[in-house]
């Protein structure tokens, strides 16, 4: 049985195979110094530090050294392994820390076993809410916590509950919005799949707080496993008397049901969601009246996001003050981010609000996969914007993101590196919104389409300088005049990229160049006459007849006929076709 464990990883990207080499050196040194007994040494896949040379971690103490050189090996063994002393100059700065509240049980318990959830402290919040607090106290506790909606808008949860509590209605509803649809965001799915009871408990507590007797999970049908696990959770909770008549023998009765969404992005918008639950087409309607007054079938209804509800049980169990002690300013607690794109460690991270974006991308995310510099970070999905690399040190809060022209949104975070073209990214998000626009209101239906057309023109090299003010004009009109959040926020990616990357747009329009090569229409093929051996292969293979000339005079590519298929470059044996 080992007393000490040594973990090794060579983290610089220049020579990944060096982990093995150092493993050999370490083992040899251990043997030489007679320290092999009781020591378990191994190379690891990921040690949490990146581009830091050889990283060595010694357990159980958890001492981590970075940039370890061959010459350091003996003293590490002599001092740290044998005597437990720390060599200060080698110590690594600790990596950015995750703080798990919403994800507290994900990956730690079996989601299908309610016993596991209770053993991890589950339903303690409900017990306190039922037997120790009055409904107003519950709302006060959530108010004190400063919990804000985690689905996008960031509206204070307690205020929503308060509005519904004051509203008159024969019955009231709480709906869990699990219609997660932002490209690249999947924290809600993960919570429902990994810890469905936490969301269920949050819902029961919410029901208790404002007097709802019925809850509804609105889950998109594309999440079959999440639906299955929620179904199991509901059945188990009923069996245990945590749902149904007189919960835990108290006076409160509450039950929940599941509704499946058929996968329209707009159904994540609350009024469209209500229409969908009622069995109608998922069209939004103007607000007010807000759902807290006039919601499902006309009754007062609160719609909360999955992550929001998962935060409720620990807030009630540990108190609002505990939650409010985390975070920064008006953005309290933690937020789950779905880190995707060009980042090395794609996945979910939950951090305290106020952590610099750089820590999330570099320390937790491990930087870019390619090793190239980060160009920007896109947050908030199709409703959000980009944050250029100059602003990566901004602490992440609702307010700071809004100031930078982006939004927190549901927490999607897509890392872009130098190979990504902002026009191309913008086109992608706008295309998504155009596809998902329900078509009810003209600004969104027509405005989105027109903007997309302009962007496509720009990416094909047919842009004109007037396109930029025109984009601005349409975007502003859409923001002001669209009926629901989808249309109001769809121009955000365009506006935010125009704000930070106007030069890149101009590069496309004026110089007709896309430096990343992502905009195919802007590629130019040309024959390098110095390298050309006049073999005629390109002319023979050009499907568009765009390469005039003969073996005497040489060949040129006629840009007006070229269809940019790249065939000439492929067949040229001399590398004489340049792609710019």
């Amino acid at each position, binding site marked *: 049985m080992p007393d000490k464990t040594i973990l090794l990883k060579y983290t610089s990207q220049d020579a990944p195979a060096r982990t093995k080499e150092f493993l050999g050196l370490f083992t040899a040194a251990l043997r030489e110094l007679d320290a092999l007994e009781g020591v378990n040494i191994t190379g*690891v896949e*990921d040690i949490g530090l990146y581009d830091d040379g050889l990283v060595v971690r010694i357990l159980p103490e958890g001492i981590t050294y970075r940039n370890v050189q061959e010459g350091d090996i003996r003293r590490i063994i002599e001092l740290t392994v044998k005597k437990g002393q720390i060599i200060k100059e080698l110590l690594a700065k600790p990596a950015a820390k995750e703080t798990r509240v919403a994800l507290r049980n994900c990956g730690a318990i079996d989601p299908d076993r309610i*016993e596991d959830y209770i053993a991890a402290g589950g339903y303690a919040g409900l017990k306190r809410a039922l037997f120790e607090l009055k409904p107003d106290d519950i709302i006060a506790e959530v108010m004190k916590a400063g919990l804000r909606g985690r689905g996008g808008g960031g509206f204070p949860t307690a205020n929503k509950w308060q509005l519904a509590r004051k509203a008159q209605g024969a019955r009231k509803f709480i709906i869990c919005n699990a219609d997660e649809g932002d490209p690249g965001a999947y924290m809600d799915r*993960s919570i429902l*799949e990994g810890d469905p009871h936490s969301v269920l408990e949050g819902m029961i507590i919410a029901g208790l707080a404002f007097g709802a007797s019925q809850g509804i999970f609105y889950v998109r049908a594309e999440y079959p496993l999440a639906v299955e696990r929620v179904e199991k959770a509901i059945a188990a909770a009923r069996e245990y008397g*945590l749902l149904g008549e007189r919960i835990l023998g108290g006076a409160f009765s509450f039950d929940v049901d599941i509704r499946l969404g058929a996968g329209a992005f707009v159904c994540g918008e609350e009024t469209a969601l209500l229409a969908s639950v009622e069995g109608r087409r998922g069209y939004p309607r103007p607000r007010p009246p807000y759902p807290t007054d006039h919601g499902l079938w006309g009754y007062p209804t609160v719609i909360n996001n999955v992550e929001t509800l998962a935060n409720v049980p620990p807030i009630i169990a540990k108190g609002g003050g505990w939650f409010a002690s985390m975070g920064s300013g008006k953005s309290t607690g933690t937020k789950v981010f779905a880190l995707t794109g060009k980042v090395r460690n794609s996945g979910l991270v939950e951090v305290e609000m106020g952590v610099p974006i750089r820590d999330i991308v570099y320390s937790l995310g491990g930087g870019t996969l390619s090793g190239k510099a980060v160009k920007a970070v896109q947050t908030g999905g199709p409703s959000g914007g980009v944050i250029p690399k100059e602003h990566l040190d901004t602490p992440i809060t609702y307010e700071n993101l809004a100031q930078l022209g982006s939004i927190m949104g549901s927490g999607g975070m897509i890392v872009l590196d130098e190979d990504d073209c902002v026009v191309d990214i913008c086109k992608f998000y706008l295309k998504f919104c155009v596809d998902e626009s329900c078509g009810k209101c003209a600004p969104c239906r027509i405005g989105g389409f027109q903007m997309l057309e302009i962007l496509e023109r720009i990416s094909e090299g047919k842009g004109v300088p007037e396109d930029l003010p025109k984009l601005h004009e349409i975007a502003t009109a859409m923001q002001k005049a669209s009926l629901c959040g989808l249309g109001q926020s769809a121009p955000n990616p365009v506006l935010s990229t125009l704000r930070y990357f106007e030069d890149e747009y101009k590069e496309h329009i004026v110089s007709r160049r896309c430096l990343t090569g992502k905009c195919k229409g802007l590629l130019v093929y040309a024959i390098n006459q110095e390298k050309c051996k006049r073999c005629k292969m390109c002319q023979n293979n050009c499907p568009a007849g765009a390469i005039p000339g003969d073996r005497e005079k040489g060949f040129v590519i006629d840009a007006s006929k070229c269809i940019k298929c790249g065939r000439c470059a492929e067949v040229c044996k001399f590398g004489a076709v340049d792609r710019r």
Partner: protein
Amino acid sequence: MPKLDKAALEKMLSARPAGGDWIKVGMSTCGLAAGAQEVYDTLVAEAKLLNAAVRVEKCGCLGMCYAEPLVEVCVSGMPRVIYGKVDKAAAMRIMERHVAAHELVDGHIIHRGERDAR
């Protein structure tokens, strides 16, 4: 199962967690898509074969989707570690070497410091 009341829930909440050695396999969509079911089945079969006193359990997503399938191993006398990118062969090695012989399996460990020292 009789319905819980306040006292019964309190009793469950204060119950001591089950001890012993365990292995958890992340079996959410991300894990399953990467082959977690085969890893789980292999671990269960190997545990039986080796007659190892270890519980093989399912759990949700740990968050490190880039390294799925993930397997977390907690065996007394050994540091608690997470193995990433586990396939059938790695699962067998984890059972034979980590669980049975108390030796860490090379290469697959994801140990990101504090994050994993829950």
